């Protein structure tokens, strides 16, 4: 069975630069994602997705593959427990395209193991995260992203 791919897309009334910063800056990501994204965002560097509850626990980590501000970010994505399992490493691409006065942010998550726990988590997670990001960037307030989870 081929690896699973998911594509999520949202329109946000903001500049590409602001959306880019909102994906990379831990202060921003903590507000709408509940996690801090930490890296120097250079190709080849590691990135970490740390819980924003003060524990600093790493939920996801990976490598920066491509970072072309403010249009395209490609990273790998893995549970820290699967560190020695390249077969469980997936890949996330963020595409930021300006359209009129807005941007279309598209998240492509590929190389996922079909039926895996990670597939289940990301497919309920991305819509929440993107909707909360949009709310933060358009109204100044994030949504309770993980309420009811």
């Amino acid at each position, binding site marked *: 069975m081929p690896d699973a791919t998911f594509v999520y897309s949202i329109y946000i009334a903001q500049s590409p630069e602001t959306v880019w910063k909102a994906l990379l800056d831990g202060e921003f990501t903590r507000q709408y994602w509940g996690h801090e994204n930490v890296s120097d965002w250079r190709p080849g560097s590691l990135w970490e997705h740390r819980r924003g509850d003060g524990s600093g626990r790493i939920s996801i980590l990976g490598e920066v593959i491509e970072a072309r501000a403010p249009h395209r970010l490609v990273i790998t994505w893995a549970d820290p427990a699967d560190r020695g399992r390249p077969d469980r490493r997936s890949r996330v691409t963020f595409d930021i395209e300006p359209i009129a006065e807005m941007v279309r942010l598209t998240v492509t998550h590929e190389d996922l193991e079909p039926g895996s726990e990670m597939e289940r988590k990301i497919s309920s997670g991305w819509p929440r995260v*993107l909707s909360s990001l949009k*709310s933060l960037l358009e109204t100044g307030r994030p949504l309770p992203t993980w309420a009811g989870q």
Partner: protein
Amino acid sequence: MVDTDLVFKALADRSRRLLLDRLNEHNGQTLRELCAHLDMTRQAATQHLGVLEAAHLVVTKRRGREKLHFLNPVPLQEIYDRWISRFERSRVRAMRELKQRLEGMKSA
């Protein structure tokens, strides 16, 4: 901005909901694959997919010469956040207040 009307109009059709079901079962299909097990002509499916794409419920990606269709549930999440998560939020607040009251009683 995707007009909410477009989302509801797109969903108000059985064939289009079937197409979304097919993508939910198996994401990233070509037009040919989508038509294979549906009682739908290629032309009708193309039209329906156009409506779903305009509502942003389906997004497409090119892979080589193929055009793949993906289910994008984000507009549905936005609808949920607009009308439903508000209630979740007040439930969370009520639970927090209850917890504080109970803990206050304990320390009093």
